[in-house]
């Protein structure tokens, strides 16, 4: 009797187990709740942001997802320092979402995190966006437009611990939709006081370093004299006789034609060959970049006098000044054979990966769109000629190819396609190596090279149009 009861109990248990098993098989079992299904990097571009007081400076927020993970939601906190402001009453107006990737800007709010001012951005792809339309890989999330309110330096950074990235997990029955933020890189910014603050100029009859609120008597400066900066001092020099500035020959991004004089040769100013000294930088290339050797980045330097005399010097090898820090600095001191002009000089510099850039003033920090140049004080002595500082306006990278597979002086779709294709390969080379599409000289091909190029294009187009 007892055995029979036991048998019945066991039998009932087994039947129950059988039914439970059938029910269980019919349901999806996922033991990975709360895990990430992929990872992503976050970074701010450009790596070096510059601006002047009173203007807007833009920081672009990027994601670079692994394994082509598709992004459907972003909740990030971006912090910034002094000199930058976001409108407290309407912060949304200063966050421009990339609606191609995320349709809905759900919330933008300001907060303070560990004493830092931050902006939290929450955005969704939107209910109408199907998984196939979600973006993956390198994604620009948004542009954050800060107002530059005072001269300052600082960092715009992403807080990785506060970042939540949601995505679409294509695994059947998956419930893990989180993407882990594996790294977050910020950007340094430098805000300088107004466009003319700190430049040498006439204040009445005096040649001084001007400030925005300086009061000066409204009289013409002395004839035949110019007020220029030489070795960080404001000095008065004799002005070069002005020939007619050739119109239409001023390069705006294209190399000046030829190396022979294109205007009437002024008399009375030619002396022995001048020496030119300058420090410069390549956009996005840090001091510790291991694949940005000067020998691999020979420069083409063109000088132009106010009278229109042009000379070009090829294969100029610079000297790397630093091996650490955020900005790689390169120095050149060269003799200008056949060019004896001392004042009113403009310098054009180009490299194998960069567009030509015009430098018209010392300490230039923005596009110089004026005719001629104001670089002065050159001497025929290598030791006394001034060392101009062009590092605050680095060469724009991205011109790496053209229709004939050589540099063509234009950053366009051909350059983008080449750099993008190379970045997909994720090639790495040893220290000291060279890859033409390695925009930041860090010896590896990655999405940051593509981002650098896209920024260069945007900046250049803004100058041209």
């Amino acid at each position, binding site marked *: 009797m007892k055995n*029979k009861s036991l*048998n019945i109990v*066991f*039998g009932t248990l*087994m*039947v129950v*187990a*059988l039914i439970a*098993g*059938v029910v*269980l*098989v019919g349901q*999806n*079992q*996922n033991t990975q709740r709360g895990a990430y299904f992929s990872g992503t990097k976050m970074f701010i571009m450009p790596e070096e942001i510059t601006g002047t007081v009173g203007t807007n400076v833009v920081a672009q927020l990027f994601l670079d997802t692994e*394994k*082509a993970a598709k992004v459907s939601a972003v909740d990030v906190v971006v912090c910034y320092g002094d000199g930058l402001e976001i409108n407290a009453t309407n912060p949304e107006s200063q966050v421009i979402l*990339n*609606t*191609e990737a995320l349709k809905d800007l759900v919330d933008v709010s300001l907060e303070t995190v560990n004493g830092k001012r931050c902006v939290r951005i929450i955005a969704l792809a939107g209910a109408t966006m199907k998984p196939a339309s979600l*973006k*993956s*890989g*390198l*994604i*620009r999330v948004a542009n954050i437009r800060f107002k530059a309110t005072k001269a300052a330096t600082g960092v715009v950074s992403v807080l990785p611990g506060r970042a939540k990235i949601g995505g679409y997990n*294509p*695994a*059947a*029955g*998956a419930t893990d939709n989180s993407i882990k933020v594996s790294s977050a890189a910020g950007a340094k910014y430098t805000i300088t006081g107004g466009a003319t603050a700190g430049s040498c100029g006439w204040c009445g009859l005096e040649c001084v370093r001007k400030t925005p609120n300086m009061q000066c008597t409204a009289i013409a400066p002395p004839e035949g004299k110019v007020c220029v900066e030489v070795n960080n001092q404001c000095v008065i020099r004799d002005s070069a006789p002005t020939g007619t500035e050739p119109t239409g020959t001023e390069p705006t*991004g*294209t190399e000046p034609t030829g190396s022979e004089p294109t205007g009437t040769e002024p008399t009375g100013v030619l002396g022995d060959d001048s020496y030119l000294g300058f420090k410069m930088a390549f956009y996005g290339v840090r001091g510790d970049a291991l694949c940005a050797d000067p020998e691999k980045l020979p420069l083409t330097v063109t000088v132009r006098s106010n009278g229109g005399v042009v000379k070009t010097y090829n294969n100029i090898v610079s000297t790397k000044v630093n091996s650490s820090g955020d900005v790689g600095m390169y120095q050149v001191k060269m003799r200008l054979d056949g060019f004896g002009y001392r004042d009113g000089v403009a310098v054009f510099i180009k490299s194998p990966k960069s567009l030509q850039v015009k430098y018209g003033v010392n300490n230039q920090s923005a596009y110089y769109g004026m005719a001629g140049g104001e670089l002065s004080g050159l001497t025929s002595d290598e030791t006394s000629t001034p060392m101009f500082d062009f590092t605050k306006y680095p060469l724009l990278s991205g011109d790496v190819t053209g*229709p004939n597979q050589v540099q*063509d*002086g*234009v950053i*366009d*779709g*051909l350059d*983008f*396609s*080449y750099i*993008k*294709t190379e970045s*997909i390969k994720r090639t790495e080379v040893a220290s000291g190596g060279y890859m033409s599409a390695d925009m930041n000289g860090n010896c590896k091909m990655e999405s940051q090279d*593509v981002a650098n190029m*896209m920024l260069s*294009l*945007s900046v*250049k*187009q*803004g100058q*041209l*149009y």
Partner: protein
Amino acid sequence: MNKNNLLKYLVPVVAVIVLAESVVLISQLKGKPLNQSKQEGENQVGEVVDNLEETRSGDEVYQIELTADATEYKVGQVGKVEVKMLGKIDKSLDSINVYVKYDPNMFEVNELKFDDRLPAPVFSKVSTLRGLLVANFLISDPKGLELSANDQLTLMTFNMKAVKTGNYDFEISTGKEMKESATMIVENGSGKPVSFSSNKLTVKVIE
């Protein structure tokens, strides 16, 4: 006796069923493998190269057409212009850089818009300085922007208001005046420019 026999057979039957359930359960847990977009991208390169071979017949691959919503406008009247791109074969693109020439002394142009299928342009502007409408589309997706044959893409639309009478043109810039303003379509994979043809849109403005 019968009940005992029943129980005797039930145990092994249940055991077999549980085993079978376990096998089914484990195989369901594996799920479908993630797509390897990198592999897809590599495959796409091969396909694109094959297509490129087919197009070397001299025919333009794309036709860029400028159309207006009317043939004639009065001074001050606002019209709409569309710039569309029609392809003859399947292609995947890495970038589309469009430059449309116009006379800023004759037209006020605004409301520049683009097809939803295109990514937000890296740069776009109505440049009165250069007399150009500019839009630069760079496609980050490793596969590029996949377009089928006969797929029509609206590169841009804009409103224009004529300010003077006469016949005026809108046309695609090919970079003759300024090489930076060359309209260009670049193919994914090969990184080569793709040929295109375009029309000139003449707008008549009357009093």
